[in-house]
């Protein structure tokens, strides 16, 4: 797991878990408060409904009081009721009075409880009606010709014809309003509440008992008995559930949004923190013994700045060490070369010394044979001289003089490929894109590098058909030249010694080609890498930087 991923996970753990816990706590508290608020609201509405019932009852009582006064003042009713006059007037009286008073139920009962006049059911006259409660509201099952309806009633009474010798007749006015769905919905006011009447004998589900607004005496349509009925308010949990679901939805949305923002912030922070480290890692990965030109600089005052500066100091020490190492290597190489030269010169001089010793001996002992012996040994002399000349030429090639100037790499590649010899069995391919920037290099040196690499590539085919591909491309501040073959490739031990002087795997090879290539590339501030697999081929990669670049060799 990368540092950035770990940072992200850690941030998520640190931020999201507390956020979730905090959010759940808030959600729980909100649900509790919403529920409590809803309960308080229902309670207040129930109180309002109770007050409405009481107000309705008082309104009925007020209207009955007015009717009672009007009835007492009505001489026609008095005569009809007390003296048995106009019966139709009596029968129609309650109907007119009920409509005038805005009631749905009105009975005028005599002192025996018989209906004298009925507004809601004119023709129930003479029926014995149950005595309503003398005080307070009640519910009755009122009969009409078409059926029954429930009514909220009040009762009042008056006495007509009371004199000194007679107590007169007592009449009871029972008036009310229909307790129908309209009445109950008007009481409920709010759609979330439902007001219902629970009559004696009604089956009520235990979980829907609701809240009792009022408990009233109830007289059914038969008037058999007086029992208790209840006006009950039930409220649906749908609204509360919907409200809580709404809260949950918004809460979840808020948590998700917060988590998303936290993750984005964590990603940004982790990137911001890890980017310098990634850059440091990249620069550090680029450090090599032959490539120590990587610069570690930072103005940061934090640990990353300190680490950058430490890496810079370490790189500087590595550069110094590498320079010393190269110097030592050069010295070792010079020593080896000197010993090799000494050895080679001695090898070249030994035949000459032998020839001169022989000639000297012949001149001294047999002067006449000297021309013949000279002629016989002339070949040896010339051969040795030729060997020495070749040796001199070879050593002269180790240290050519460089003239660095802006050079078109592709042009040099094309020129070098024109002089490749012995490539009849090889297929030469080039991938030379246009627009490569020029590199500052000695064109002859570059050509020599390329000739060596291409020549080695052709030789690696060992006479078998194969391909040699030379490609150039623009790199990160460098121009990259790739010479790839499909030849024999190198083993690891061969690769380890491939750049050593005088090491060769070819018959007749000098063992100096790659050594020279390496030195020329390094002297050109470039870099050389090798990728090789036995029997698969080798790829030599030369990277030539612009001015001020260094060089290195890697495999």
């Amino acid at each position: 797991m990368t540092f950035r991923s770990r940072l992200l996970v850690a941030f998520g753990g640190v931020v999201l878990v507390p956020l979730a816990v905090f959010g759940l706590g808030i959600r729980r508290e909100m649900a509790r408060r919403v529920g409590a608020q809803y309960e308080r609201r229902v309670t207040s509405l129930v109180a309002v409904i109770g007050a409405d019932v009481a107000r309705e009852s008082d309104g009925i009582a007020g209207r009955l009081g007015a009717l009672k006064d009007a009835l007492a003042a009505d001489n026609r009713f008095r005569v009809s009721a007390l003296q048995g006059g106009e019966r139709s007037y009596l029968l129609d009286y309650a109907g007119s009075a009920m409509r005038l008073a805005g009631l749905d139920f009105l009975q005028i009962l005599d002192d025996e409880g018989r209906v004298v006049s009925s507004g809601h059911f004119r023709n129930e006259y003479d029926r014995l009606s149950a005595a309503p409660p003398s005080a307070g509201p009640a519910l009755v099952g009122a009969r009409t010709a078409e059926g029954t309806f429930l009514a909220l009633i009040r009762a009042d009474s008056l006495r007509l014809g009371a004199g000194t010798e007679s107590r007169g007749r007592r009449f009871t006015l029972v008036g009310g309003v229909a307790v129908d769905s309209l009445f109950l919905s008007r009481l409920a006011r709010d759609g979330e509440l439902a007001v219902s009447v629970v009559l004696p004998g009604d089956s009520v589900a235990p979980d829907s008992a609701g809240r009792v607004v009022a408990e009233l005496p109830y007289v059914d349509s038969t008037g058999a008995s007086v029992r208790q009925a209840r006006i009950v308010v039930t409220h649906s949990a749908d609204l509360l559930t919907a409200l809580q679901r709404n809260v949950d939805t918004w809460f979840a949305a808020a948590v998700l949004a917060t988590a998303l923002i936290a993750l984005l912030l964590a990603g940004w922070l982790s990137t911001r923190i890890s980017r310098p480290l990634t850059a440091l890692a990249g620069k550090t990965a680029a450090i090599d013994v032959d490539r120590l030109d990587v610069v570690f600089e930072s103005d940061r005052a934090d640990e990353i700045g300190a680490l950058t500066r430490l890496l810079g100091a370490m790189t500087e020490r590595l550069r110094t060490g590498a320079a010393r190492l190269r110097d030592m290597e050069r010295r070792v190489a010079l020593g080896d070369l000197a010993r090799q030269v000494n050895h080679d010169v001695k090898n070249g001089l030994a035949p000459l010394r032998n020839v001169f010793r022989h000639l000297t001996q012949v001149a001294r002992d047999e002067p006449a044979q000297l021309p013949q012996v000279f002629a016989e040994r002339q070949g040896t002399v010339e051969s040795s001289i030729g060997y020495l000349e070749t040796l001199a030429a070879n050593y002269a090639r180790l240290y050519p003089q460089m003239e660095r100037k802006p050079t078109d790499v592709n042009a040099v590649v094309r020129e070098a490929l024109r002089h490749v010899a012995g490539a009849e069995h090889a297929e030469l391919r080039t991938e030379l894109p246009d627009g490569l920037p020029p590199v500052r290099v000695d064109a002859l040196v570059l050509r020599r590098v390329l000739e060596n690499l291409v020549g080695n590539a052709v030789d690696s085919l060992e006479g078998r058909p194969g391909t040699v591909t030379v490609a150039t491309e623009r790199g990160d501040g460098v121009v990259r030249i790739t010479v790839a073959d499909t030849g024999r490739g190198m083993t690891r031990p061969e690769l380890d010694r491939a750049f050593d002087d005088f090491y060769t795997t070819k018959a007749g090879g000098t063992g100096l080609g790659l050594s020279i290539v390496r030195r020329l590339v390094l002297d050109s501030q470039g870099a050389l890498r090798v990728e090789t697999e036995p029997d698969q081929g080798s790829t030599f990669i030369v990277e030539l930087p612009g001015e001020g670049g260094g060089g290195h060799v890697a495999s």
Partner: protein
Amino acid sequence: MMRRTAWLFALLAGACARPSAVRVAPAAGGACRLDAGRASHVPAVTVALTDSVDPAHAPVPLNDAERVVFGQLYETLLRFDCEGRPMPGLAESWTSSDGGRRWTLTLRAEAQFWDGAPVTARDVVVGKGGAGFTLSATDARVVTVALARGTDSPPAFLADPALAIVKPAPDRGWPIGTGRYWVTGATTTPQEIRAQTTAGDTLVFRLTTGRDPRDLLDAGVDLLITHDRAVLDYAATQPRFATLELPWDRAYLFAAAEPPTARLDGLEQAVRAEARRAEGPFWWEHLDACGPAPAPAPAGTASAPAQRRTVFPRRDGAARDLAGRIAALTHGVAAGLAPADFARALAAGTEAGYVFPVPRQVADPCRAARDLLPPWPSMVAALVDTRSRAVVRRGGSLWVVDWDGTVHVAPQ
């Protein structure tokens, strides 16, 4: 109360008895005149109607308004006044023979339809007939009525609106009659029916449906027939109107398969219209000659009512009052039905009880029994008689009352 157990075909003409006499009070200057003081000829007479009028029903009325309108427009062979005395109708004279079993009626010489076509005896008899009598055209102006049983006076069915002389109109609107007043679709609007005579007299029937009849009284009408107490009380306050009693023309019956569980008396108090305890004799008590008793309702066609209820025609206030009272007495319920639904329910016999009105006087009791009474064996009780009152403009036209309570403009 009567239990009808058997019906016989009316093979005897005596089943259709002479109408009983009715009284109109006050009756000064003529027993059947509505006396509102000095009357005079009024060329334009306005009658207020409290029910709707459908020309498709003509000439047989289905409500009080149609009875007034159709009675004025369409003629029967004879009329009977409120005392039951025969009066000339389309027939100007009549004689009997064969012991009262054969009656010969002579049509008016100048009788003609509204379109000017002369009325012949054939126009009178074609398609007409009934139980216990036959009609035949002796010559162009003479109609012969043959009865199964002889009578002393002309049979009442001769004044039956079902035997009124009409022919269909080309526009399929008002049938063409022979009466003095004629009417067409062109003289009819939703608000009024304008009938005219060839002499230029006009009779305007003004419909009060949906309106307060008192407004029409204020606007000036010559005749308004109503039982609405508020209207009658208002008319009583107007000196230009006289309020006159009309005959007890309607009886309300209670029909049920079983006798009621409570005594059905004193019901006249339950009716807001002017009512009295029903007084016989009743025409439905003498139906033995009309045929066999109705068969019981076929099994399966009548189902037991889910609730014990008494049904009544919805628009009839008196029937509603009576049904309500019966519901109060029997601890049942009352339910109003549309006329067509009530007729179906009465035919089916599925309800606990039926309250409905019938005419006190009918020209053909057998046909009335067939049309109005339950077709199944039933207990029929007469509950109350009701009547309306006529509000007549003083000094206006002279109005007379027929045997069945129909009010006419008296012929000049």
